């Protein structure tokens, strides 16, 4: 029979994967619509965590209030980010420039710049060390399930991720804004000439994607009890890897690959050593790029 130790590692890997998935959803949503990588997504995650921290230290509200305020902050961040780092480069609104290389390259740089400014700004304001969090807010109370012990955070993160993913599917397929997002990602010019406000659709997409990023930030911060200015960097990279593996614009693909990444990192930690965990992620990326250049779930699907 299985050693419970392995099941335990599997559970840890799975919860890690769910965290990557939360990040990857926002990343992929924005890529699907604009065809650009948003390098500031990791900092949205960090700023979301810090917003929650400030709220907790100032008012100590209930957990759900913290979560909803952080989601609102995330939406605002997405709005601001799009206006600062993306919209100025979208000077012409035809499809060629909306999805052109120049647009892609300049927003790669501008979103990277925003991410550096945000990270360094937080370091100046708070210092680079981990912030102390009130113990009662941490979501790491153990729950024993047979031989395996998980913590409350595993359950909360899983439930929130499932709700976000389900909510997003509902939004994309059943609502008008979702229809607009899908139309803009399929053909912005076609959408524009039948009355869809592409600018507003794009900024809405950023708000939704960043909401998820910020939500992931505060959840992970409370899960590990660690909130610090550089916390968004590694999850940002992992979410990027998951997005590429999933086929760049497939949200379900990115989620599956994020879970796969988390699980295999957990297994690598168990069987090799924790130092090798990151190697697994990058190894997967290289193998995917060589053998499945379209991504594992890439070809012939609807974007977003």
């Amino acid at each position, binding site marked *: 029979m299985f050693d419970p130790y392995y099941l335990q590692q599997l559970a840890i890997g799975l919860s890690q994967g769910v965290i990557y998935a939360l990040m990857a959803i926002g990343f992929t949503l924005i890529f699907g619509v604009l065809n650009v990588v948003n390098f500031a997504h990791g900092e949205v995650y960090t700023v979301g965590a810090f917003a929650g921290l400030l709220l907790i230290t100032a008012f100590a509200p209930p957990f759900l209030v913290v979560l909803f305020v952080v989601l609102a902050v995330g939406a605002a961040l997405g709005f601001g980010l799009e206006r600062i780092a993306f919209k100025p480069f979208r000077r012409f*609104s*035809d499809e060629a420039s909306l999805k052109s290389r120049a647009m892609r390259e300049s927003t790669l740089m501008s979103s990277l710049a925003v991410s550096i400014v945000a990270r360094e700004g937080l370091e100046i304001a708070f210092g680079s060390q981990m912030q102390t969090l009130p113990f009662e807010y941490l979501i790491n109370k153990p729950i024993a399930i047979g031989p395996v012990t998980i913590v409350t955070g595993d359950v909360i993160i899983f439930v929130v991720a499932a709700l976000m993913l389900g909510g997003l599917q509902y939004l994309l397929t*059943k*609502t*008008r*804004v*979702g*229809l*607009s997002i*899908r*139309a803009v990602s*399929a*053909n912005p*010019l*076609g*959408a*524009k*000439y*039948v*009355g*869809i*406000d*592409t600018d*507003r659709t794009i900024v*809405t997409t950023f708000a939704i994607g960043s909401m998820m990023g910020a939500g992931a930030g505060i959840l992970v911060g409370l899960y590990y009890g660690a909130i610090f200015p550089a916390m968004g960097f590694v999850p940002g990279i992992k979410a990027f890897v998951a997005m590429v593996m999933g086929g760049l614009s497939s949200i379900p693909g990115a989620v599956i690959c994020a879970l796969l990444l988390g699980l295999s990192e957990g297994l690598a930690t168990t069987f090799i050593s924790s130092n090798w965990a990151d190697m697994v992620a990058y190894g997967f990326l290289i193998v995917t790029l060589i053998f499945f250049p379209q991504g594992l779930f890439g070809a*012939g*699907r*609807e*974007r977003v």
Partner: protein
Amino acid sequence: MSLLEIENVTRRFGGLVAVDDVTTRVEAGELVGLIGPNGAGKTTLFNLISGFTALTSGAVRFKGAAIDGSKPHVIAARGMSRTFQNLRVFPNMSVFDNVSVGSVGAMGQSAFAAVFGRRGRSDAISARTWEALERVGLAEQSEELAANLSYGKRKYLEIARALAMRPDLLILDEPAAGLNDSETAELARFIRTLNDDGLAVMLVEHDMNLVMGICSRVVVLASGRKIADAEPAVVRADPAVLEAYLGVDE
């Protein structure tokens, strides 16, 4: 007051005058053709009308209100709808969803309705969508992915998406491109039925025959200038038009 009034419209790109002082109009319920050889400025004029390119000088009025400087989606929502020469359908969405985008676009998106308005339940949206699908004969294939339709059917899908906006003016950009003779004839009949129901149509075409066959008036552009604006029979006999199309031996 004409439905669409184009007054002394000029557009320069650097030293190139793509559209040079063009004045014309489209009346409500009219079927007008816009033709000209390659590079005549048809596409630029089209882009000026639909808000895609800014005017250098002149004015464009739609239903009596100036629309130059308005964004394309605003102009579209006011009742001017278009299709594209190289189709711009949404390939991996269903036929129904493709046309729904037109319905949603036309009904405006108040912030609340845009986020919380449910598409499936909204009777007004699905009524518009079904009406447009039935009009072009695609109702049976509403659940099919647009990518799986034949090229000809995708043209009708794009027209349905435009019709779902219930426009007052429909602009068709080279609709016959890529169709064979019998398909073109069928399309011509279809455009006529749309026009018979009172919809004003502007047909931008490279090829003269379709335009001459169904339009009541034809505007001819050459090198950015309007060289003719009359009934098909008059245009066909116009020496300036013949020269622009065929060249003249000196």
